[in-house]
Every structure is written in C-alpha cells, then in structure tokens.
C-alpha cells in the first residue's frame, strides 16, 4: 500500500513536471517546423516570462493578470526583435549557422537580464494559494492544476490554429516545403515571424505558470530549455500530441527514476532517453518514418 501511494505521488509529480517540459517542447517544435532551426534561446523565453512577471508585479505594481499579460507581450516583442535582427537578415545561412546564432542570442539575453535584474532567485506568489490537494493518496498544489489547465488550453489552441485557420495551414505548408509554399503565394518570411511570435508567447506563458513553483532567476532557462528540447525530440519535433506525450513521459520517468532508482541519476535518465531515441528512432517515438523532412 505504501509503495502504491509512493508511486502515485511519483507519477503525479512527474506528470506536473512533464507538462512544463511539454509546453517548452511545443514552442521548440513550432519554430523548428517553420524554419528548420532549433532555437536554443527558447529556454530564455521561458525565463523572461517569469522574470518579467515578477518585475511587473513588484516594480510596476500591476495586478497579477496584467503583469502576466505584460510579461507575455514583452517576451513576444523580444522574439520578434530577435527574428528581425538575427534570423531574417541571414537569408541563405545554413541551419547550423542559425542554431549557433540562437545560442549566442540566449547568452546575450541571459547576460542582459542578469545585469538589469540581478542574479537573485525570486519567487512569484501562487495564483490560487498553497494548500495542497489530495488525489488518490498523493498530493499536489493548486498551481499544478494551473499548469495542467494551461497546457491543455495551449495544445487545443495550437491544434485549432494549425489545422483550422488559413495562417496555421500556411505555416504547416512552409514546414513541408518552403519553396512550394512560396510559389503558391505564401509569404514565408511572415510565417517565420509568426512562428517566433507564437513560440515566444507559449514559452513565456510556460515560464509564468511555473514561476510560483520553481522560482525563477536569470539562469533557469538553460536546464528547462534542454528538457523541453528532449520532449520535442521524443515527439519527433511535431507541434502536436507527440511532443506533449514526450514531455509527460520524460517527466514521469525522471520522477520514478529519482524515487525508485537513485536521485543522483535523475538528469542522466533524461539524457540517456534522449540519446537512445536519437540512435534508434530519430523520427520520434510516435511518428512513422519519413524519407525526408523539410
């Protein structure tokens, strides 16, 4: 019985962490699908979401909802500026060069935040209190429900956007074949910008809703970014359910591994899974093999 109770706690904690990975993974996939690059500054969008909410709350004295809106909007602006200044001018750069640019951008963003807001870790108050909720013998916090809720909303929103709107369909077209999309009159440049907007917004939203639980500082983006990347790889870099499942599986395995095997190997488990998938199923866990991805 005790073991059962422990395992439910591991699974529930893991799912909560996994939902965060899933959100970050999604924002990785959105940019990858329209540009073919992996944006390693994604973790920094997550960090900006949290840090800016705290700034708006404590310095600008905005109410929580307004603070969140300001933070998401400001991060989106950072995403747009980043795309305009660093990605767009390099029309014919190879994906590798672009990826290195995103790494440079991540270091720059981290450095600026460190200089402007300092190095201290800060906490955001929980959205709806800190009283634990009991679920089949395990406990979770109201904030976890917020995370699950926002994750579901974002997934549904993405699904509707990508499959039922003209812009969304145009973005998918760009991911399948940029040249053909261009030929039928889709402005590829605008779609790339769009993808940065959505991805920065989703990333910063993830940063906001986890800040009350995990706290935030200028350097939280690195590890969260890597875990989100793992989730996206597990899902085959698709912007749908695969990445979400990837995140949830990763979170649960980490938590079970830490609880049942050894907490020292928690991150090793995550990265071992990543390597294994890259070796055995580079197209992702839930995808049929494709001959070519553009």
């Amino acid at each position, binding site marked *: 019985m005790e073991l059962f109770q422990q395992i439910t706690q591991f699974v529930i904690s893991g799912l909560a962490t996994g939902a965060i990975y899933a959100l970050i993974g999604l924002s990785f996939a959105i940019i990858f699908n329209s540009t073919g690059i992996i944006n390693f500054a994604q973790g920094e969008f997550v960090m900006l979401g949290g840090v800016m909410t705290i700034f708006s709350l404590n310095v600008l004295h905005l109410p929580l909802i307004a603070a969140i809106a300001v933070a998401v909007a400001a991060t989106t602006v950072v995403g747009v500026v980043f795309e305009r200044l660093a990605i767009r001018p390099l029309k014919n750069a190879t994906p590798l060069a672009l990826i290195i640019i995103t790494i440079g951008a991540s270091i720059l963003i981290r450095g600026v935040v460190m200089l402007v807001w300092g190095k201290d870790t800060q906490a955001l108050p929980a959205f709806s209190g*800190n009283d634990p909720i009991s679920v089949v013998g395990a406990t979770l916090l109201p904030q976890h429900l917020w995370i699950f809720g926002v994750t579901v909303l974002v997934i549904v929103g993405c699904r509707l956007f990508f499959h039922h709107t003209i812009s969304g369909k145009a973005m998918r077209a760009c991911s399948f074949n940029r040249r053909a999309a261009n030929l039928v009159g889709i402005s590829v440049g605008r779609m790339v910008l769009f993808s940065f907007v959505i991805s920065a917004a989703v990333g910063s939203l993830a940063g906001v809703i986890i800040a009350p639980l995990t706290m935030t500082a200028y*350097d939280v983006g690195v590890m969260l970014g890597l875990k989100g990347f793992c989730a996206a790889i597990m899902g085959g870099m698709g912007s749908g359910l695969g990445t979400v499942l990837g995140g949830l599986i990763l979170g649960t395995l980490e938590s079970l591994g830490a609880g049942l095997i050894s907490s020292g190997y928690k991150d090793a488990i995550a990265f071992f899974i990543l390597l294994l998938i890259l070796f055995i199923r580079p197209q992702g866990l839930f995808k049929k093999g494709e001959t070519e991805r553009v």
Partner: protein
Amino acid sequence: MKKLISTAFAAFSLFCLSTAALAAPPIKIGALFAVTGPASFLGEPERNTAQMVVDEINKAGGVKGRKLELIVYDTGGDATKAVQLANKLIKNDNVVAIIGPSTTGDTMAVAPVADKAGIPLVSCAAGSKITDPVRKNVFKTAQNDALAVARIYEQLKKEKKSKVAILSVSDGFGSSGREQLKAQAAAYGIQIVSDDTFGPKDTDMTAQLTKIRGSHAQAVICWGTNPGPAVVARNAKQLGLAIPLYMSHGVSSKKFIELAGDAAEGIRLPSGKVLVADLLPKNDKQKASLLAFIKDYQSHFKAEGDHFGGHAWDAVMLLKGAIEKGGDTPAGIRNALESTRNFAGIGGVFNYSAKDHAGLTKDAFTLVEIKKKDWVLVK
C-alpha cells in the same frame, strides 16, 4: 633675485621630498572572488565587504601609516580562471597576500599555486579539505562544514532522534556536506536511513521527499544553497511531511525565507552568529565585531550583511592584524597569521596554530529556527 630663486628652489625640493614621503608605496593585497557565475551569491557580498573594510582602514590612516591596496579579480567560479588570476596577482601585481577564492573548488585549485609561491592565502570557502591537511601558506575564515554538521547532530541527540534522512545538492557544497553527515553520524549514534541528492537547478524534489516520507526517518537534513533548499521546503509542505526539516548554513540569509515563503516556518539551521547578532547575550565575544559589520554594510550597500560578506571581513581584518605584527613581507604575514589567537570576528573566535589553519570550534555556529519570517535562537 638670486635669493628669491634659491628660496623657490628650496621650497620646491622640500615639496618634492614631502610628497615622496607621503606616497610610501601601498601594501598590495590580492583578492579572488566569484563575483559572477553560479557562486556570485558568495562572491558579491565578499567583494563588497573586502573593499569596504579596506577603504575604512585607509580612511583611518592605513596599517602602520601605509595604505592598503586591494586588487580584486573575478574568477566567475571557474577553477582554471582562478589559477590564472592567482598567478597574475603573484607575478604581475606582486601582492603580499591573497584573500579568497569564494568556493572550495576554486580554493583547492589555487592553494598549491599560492603555497609554492610562499604567498599567504586566506580563503573564504568552507570545505574542510582546504586546511586538512594543513598547507603552510593556506588559511581559511569560513566555518568548516563539519562544525555545522556537529551542531545539528548535537541537537538531534539532545532530542533523542536517531534516524535521519539526508538530501544534498549534487555540487561541491552538497557533496562535502554529505560526506561530513555520513562521517560523523556514528559518533552521535545517528543512523542515516535515506541518502538522496538533487541537482542545483532542479525544480521539483517531491520524488525524493516522498521516498523519505516512506523511510521512517525522524528528521530530514537538507544540504544545499538557494534555490534548491527553498524548493525542498515548499515540496515538504506540499507533501505534508511531518518530521522536522533541518537546512545547512548555506541558506542562512533572509533570501531563503523570502523564497520559501510560508514553507520556511519551523525550519532549523546552523548559522553564523551574524544573523542573530542582536539576540546574542552581552558577554558574547563576537557581539561588538558583528554589530559593527552589520551597521557598516547597511550604510554602504543598503542591504543586510550576511555571513558570506563576514568571511571577507574576517580575512581582511586577520591580514591587517598580521601585517601590524609581522611586517609587510609574505613570510612575516604568514607567521603572524599562524600565531593569531582569540580574534573575535564575524565567523567566530579564531585561534590559528601550526596544526590548525581553520581556527574555529563548533561554537562558531548557533542553531536558529525560522518563526514568523524571522530567526530565533534554538535553546
């Protein structure tokens, strides 16, 4: 006319002579602090404090009429960089002594360099292996982890609790604490029933704490520096963990209470006396130093002085005393440092000797509990 010229000349040469006398070269002291990077929470207050103390010594006329010059370099918490900068201090800047580095890792890398060059090094890091075994020229001001562990175990023994779970961060600070916790357990009749770790950037420790909850431990000891322990405190509250939670001295600052929020209530930790200076009895030897340091830091930086800054305060003041006694040569300073007795600083009452370059006893720590977002002494 001739007379005027000669008077002017005499006056001029006198002026030159007097400025030459005024400008007796300052005594150069080097400092290596991790002002940026992951250990910046140590390096920044240390740098601030060291500069503040040196400025004040100079304002008061220097040491034996000579000014001190502090040359500070930022190691960024990188051991390779720390070694390069130590070489620079010794070879280019010709310092007579070095304060720092801030972390145990940096210090272990720099120690052989300073020792070989014969330059006294007063480290601000806590790891006990810095001064064990003793190196001729290496001293330290931060309290050993071993003393903090002893302070916690003493309390647990008093409360007749014998089964503990330990949860340590997987970095230098955590693994050093973990070693000490394991090494001293037997001496206090304590059994470690669960031994877990977490990563410095981990955001959820419920898995480890759930495991601990199932292990029948009577207390949890968490060894780490912010933000990990604050996450542990919040997760413990989430899980409704009913056993007492002890933290290390690594989180003994108001920042921890701020981060952990309500979850900080009732947590106990060993701390340098700087946190509770105003609660100390009047006859406490350190009280005067502590209050002076806190007041100074407050007026300079509009922030509360913590015990990390205190390590640098102790290092500068110890060097000042050693220069007064032993002169301005590295060898003289070293010998004078080693003979320091009963120096009541921020970290504790220092008594260096040929066999002990750490100089403190477990009285350097006092056990505090967090109540209503403030510290109280545990009796």
